[in-house]
């Protein structure tokens, strides 16, 4: 795949991730304990399967910056919390991809890592260790949303026909 084509695909994926993130934030309010679907993780999974680690980092950085610029939360408290979740889940995705784990498992584990990273940031920023008591509930809901995003990205990967 030549350079221009690759850049086009990566920007397309970044734009998709931004749109999914912003639309999810606008139309699906978080449930109790701030449980969300995390649909933007679909794009991360697709990117690591189609391209690789460097491209995943590119798409994620663009997604974080642009979606937070649109939402108007850039460099605020919520920005750092969500960013630490994204970083930890990206690390997990990369490690599990190296270990050749299945997509569903990667998705579920990265969802857990996402809530873990957010929890670490909340504990550090707000200095409230008690809030970690809702972590078991978050982990169980992460398993459920991880199955959802994993199935969707499996379906999407089956239909994408890019020659790399």
């Amino acid at each position: 795949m030549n350079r221009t084509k690759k850049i086009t695909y990566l920007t397309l994926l970044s734009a998709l991730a931004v749109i999914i993130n912003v639309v999810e934030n606008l139309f699906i309010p978080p449930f109790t304990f701030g449980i969300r679907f995390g649909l933007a993780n679909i794009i991360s999974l697709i990117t690591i399967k189609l391209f690789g680690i460097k491209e995943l980092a590119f798409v994620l950085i663009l997604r974080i910056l642009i979606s937070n610029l649109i939402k108007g939360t850039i460099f605020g408290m919520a920005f750092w919390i969500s960013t630490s979740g994204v970083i930890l889940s990206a690390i997990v995705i990369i490690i599990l991809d190296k270990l050749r784990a299945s997509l569903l498992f990667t998705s579920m584990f990265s969802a857990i890592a996402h809530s873990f990273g957010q929890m670490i940031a909340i504990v550090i920023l707000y200095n409230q260790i008690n809030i970690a008591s809702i972590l078991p509930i978050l982990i169980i809901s992460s398993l459920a949303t991880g199955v959802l995003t994993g199935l969707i990205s499996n379906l999407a990967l089956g239909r994408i026909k890019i020659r790399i």
Partner: protein
Amino acid sequence: MKKSEKITIIIIFLIAVFFIIFNRINSKDKIMVSVKDANDNVLLSFDINEDNYYTLQGSYGTFNIEVKDGKCRAIDVECPNQICVHTGWISVDNPVPIICLPNELIVSIDE
């Protein structure tokens, strides 16, 4: 999905369920709520399971706390933004602290 992955998921699920049950059992009957000022001095400490109504003098105006059915909230507070009032009911299941910046007060559930 491979077999080892399934086992890992089941183990994580069981650990999470265990901790939820553990938290439920371990939660004490007497849950104390403390009101602190900006210098971490405890102004008031009360049991969340005893219905009551407390009135405090903050650095901006009066600050009232309503305790009912194992929950508590800030009510009738003299401050410009009313962020503490909009925090709503807090309880063991929703342990967010109520913070009022103009009155320099923090209402939080203790461990």
